[in-house]
């Protein structure tokens, strides 16, 4: 079960996003659909980073590598075994999840601080990029290979919509499922364990919470979600390219989205991803400046806006509503 307030929020977001693919493609606008798909993919990545980084202080700087592991595992095993990629997608998710769990386990066991885990995962990320590009026989090197194994033609044909529109709904489904899962996790005893471990690992251990297990669970879930999303991302692109999994292409964006939207909130990742994707579109006019703008945004966010949009908006709303319904007022559960 998920808390009623979360259920309402998820329902509202779903209702707001559901018509978008049909609306934007009504006039045949596939470009807008592409933007929307990117938004869904990155919002889901951000939900995952929220669990790993914001809740359990595990600064994963290898989301690109995890997404790549998910995508390559899914695509390559499907091709090697000769079955549909939908059957190998769980394998991709588990492969990425296992990598995340191993890293979390080693980090927790060795008592790594945030910065050590950050550098460790960044090293893994860069090694993975070298591997994706370097293992030409397997991955097709930097030119990659076309991929359409996760196509949903059969559904699209049955319903009578474009395949890409149908696929946008698959991604929306994954985002909504990840939000529901996140809400359940946060409301469960694991959610309490996350909170205690984050605030004081020593006290948590003393209170009988298995800190290593808690962090490994968070690492596995986050990594598996990133792996799944990565596989769906390459289907949306129609191509598996190593450059899609680069540190600058995924990790930097997702970090900005998480902090901008609001850490440890349900809708922060969605709001942050939406804001950055929109901003990126607006900057499209002056496209060459987008990288520089992103860097400046990262600095400004961390120096002066670390609480994020959702908590700020919530504060503003609460002070506006006053204590009309006091029970839900200042809680962190937005």
């Amino acid at each position, binding site marked *: 079960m998920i808390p009623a307030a979360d259920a309402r929020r998820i329902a509202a977001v779903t209702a707001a996003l559901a018509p978008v693919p049909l609306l934007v493609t009504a006039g045949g606008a596939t470009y807008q659909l592409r933007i929307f798909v990117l938004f869904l993919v990155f919002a889901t990545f951000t939900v995952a980073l929220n669990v790993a980084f914001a809740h359990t202080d595990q600064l994963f700087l290898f989301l690109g590598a995890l997404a790549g592991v998910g995508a390559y595992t899914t695509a390559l095993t499907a091709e090697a075994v000769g079955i549909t990629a939908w059957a190998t997608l769980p394998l991709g998710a588990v492969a990425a999840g296992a990598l995340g769990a191993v890293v979390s386990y080693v980090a927790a066991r060795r008592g790594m601080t945030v910065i050590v885990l950050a550098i460790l995962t960044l090293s893994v990320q860069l090694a993975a990029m070298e591997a994706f590009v370097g293992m030409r026989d397997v991955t097709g090197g930097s030119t990659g290979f076309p991929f359409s194994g996760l196509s949903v033609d059969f559904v699209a044909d049955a319903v009578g919509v474009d395949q890409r529109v149908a696929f946008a709904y698959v991604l929306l489904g994954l985002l909504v499922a990840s939000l529901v899962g996140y809400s359940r996790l946060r409301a469960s005893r694991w959610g309490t364990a996350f909170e205690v471990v984050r605030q004081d690992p020593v006290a948590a251990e003393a209170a009988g919470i298995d800190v290593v297990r808690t962090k490994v669970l968070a690492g596995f879930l986050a990594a598996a979600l990133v792996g799944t999303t990565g596989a769906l991302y390459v289907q949306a692109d129609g191509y598996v390219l190593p450059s899609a999994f680069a540190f600058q292409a995924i990790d930097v964006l997702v970090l900005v989205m998480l902090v901008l939207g609001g850490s440890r909130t349900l809708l922060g990742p969605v709001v942050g991803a939406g804001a950055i994707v929109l901003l990126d579109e607006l900057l499209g006019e002056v496209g060459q400046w987008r*990288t520089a703008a992103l860097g400046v945004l990262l600095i400004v966010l961390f120096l002066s806006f670390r609480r994020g949009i959702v908590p700020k908006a919530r504060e503003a709303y609460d002070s506006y509503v006053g204590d009309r319904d006091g029970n839900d007022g200042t809680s962190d559960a937005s």
Partner: protein
Amino acid sequence: MVVATGLEVAIDGVARGLSFALLGAAITLVFGLGNVLNLALGSFAVIAVVVAVAVAGAVGSVVGGAAAGIAAVALLGLAVDRTLLSSVYRSEGEERIVLGIFVTLGLAIAIDGVLFVYVPLTYSIAHGVPALELAGVAVRGSTLLTVAVAAPVLAGLFGFLDRTRLGTATRTVVHDETGALLCGVNPRRIRTLVFVLSVVLAGVAGLLRAASSDVTVAAGFELTVFAIIVAIVGGVRDLRGTVVAGLGLGVVITFANFLVGAYLANVLLFGVAVAVLVARPEEIS
């Protein structure tokens, strides 16, 4: 023949190692002093190269260009220290470390973004140092130049830290900030000095790289990563360890490049970093 080739690769490795040592030292100095891991270090190196190439073309002197490149990064380093890093230094402990990562990462992305717009080409420096052949062992001019520049710079760095009053003050701040304060040393001033010094070291490393191969804006992040790995392997607060690690990794990577190719050599480098982090996570915290 095999011996001669092996020697050539080893000499190249030492030169690369000296460059690595410069980069690693730049990370170690700033992290040891103020707990800021400078993820923008490589971007400073690229700026030095770009300015050096532009000025060298304008004034017709490679040395003049190099001097201008170094001066440019020193000024930029000073500006960054007085503005962004001042904000970072206001927080303490783990908070400062995390803030430092993100602010310098943002700075790296911002600098790279601007450079991509204005200087999207590849840059190299025509140093004009001739190759040398000695008893069948050929040494490239850029290798000679690297050794001739990097070795004295590193020696000068140690001389500064060991022999001068300011250097002693710097080491005092590293060991005991409160004690330094009581002795009349202003830690913030020292941090500024050392940050500028670190970007100058990075600038020198960048110029040397541009003397041996083409440098693009994308090389900035790569240089940063090399620098961090060298610093980690050497023990991130230990300058001598960092220099030794730089030399060692330089030789190992150059041989790996020669024997198994660039991709595997880089994977090996990251593997070493991961292994060291797993073995000694308490080194950097």
